[in-house]
């Protein structure tokens, strides 16, 4: 299953919008997926990502699913955010 983050906007910055995005994808996208299903999180098309938004989406996804791959992480704010999450939010991928 691929989750295209650009479907939630190209500027992903606040915690409330991150929380809302996670609730929406839990209800409409990942609701039938098992914990072992391969999940691809696709960052293509994202211009601005912050640790606050990602903390509300990426971290809960990594707790719920065991087989996650991150795709198209070239954007500078995506790279910097993932670095911060690995350092301060125990992101392991």
């Amino acid at each position, binding site marked *: 299953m691929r989750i295209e983050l650009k479907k939630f906007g190209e*500027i992903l*910055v*606040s*915690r*409330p*919008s991150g929380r809302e995005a996670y609730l929406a994808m839990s209800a409409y996208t990942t609701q039938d997926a098992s914990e072992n299903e391969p999940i691809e999180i696709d960052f293509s098309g994202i*211009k*601005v*990502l*912050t*640790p*606050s938004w990602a*903390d509300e989406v990426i971290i809960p996804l990594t707790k719920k699913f065991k087989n996650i791959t991150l795709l198209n992480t070239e*954007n*500078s*704010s995506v790279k*910097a*955010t993932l*670095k*911060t*999450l690995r*350092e*301060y*939010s125990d992101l392991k991928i």
Partner: protein
Amino acid sequence: MSIENKLEKLAFEWLTASPEKTQMENEYYCQTRDIFQARLDRMLHELLREKSISEEDIYIVSAMTGEIGNNSFDHNLGKWPDVPGIFFGYSVSEKLEIILADRGQGILATLQKVKPELQSDSVALETAFLERISGRAPERRGNGLKFVKENIKSQKMHLTFVSGNAQARLNDGMEIIEIENKTSGCLAIITL
């Protein structure tokens, strides 16, 4: 700290004005998070159109701006001392300057809720930039200012951050000094 241009003067005036003079129709005042988000979107697209700084820096500085501005709303929601919302302005001439300010509780009062032993603005500011700590415990937060600090350094930008009587200046390193004029809330100036 010294005031160096018109935008900084406007931010200081907004921070120190009586409450009834802060809520006027104003292109810099963002009463709600939605207004801030819309103006952040506009800044991003203006900077991308002008191409005066690299795309890489534009995305990073927009993310840092989003973190600092949203921090003001996250930590003062329902507890604004007088005026809700933030001042958000930017100018592009020889350099890009972005100013964010709020009239909230400030870093010390926010962090004292989870670390009551903090006694000064300067120690609180140092804690905010160096420790993974959040005034909204038990929620797991507190990585925003660390993100800002690391990217100020890696992208060779400058940040002045004032709260209470403490002023942090960040570039390659971080220096915190005490200043004479106490600022209620927070003031951040990013330059590159």
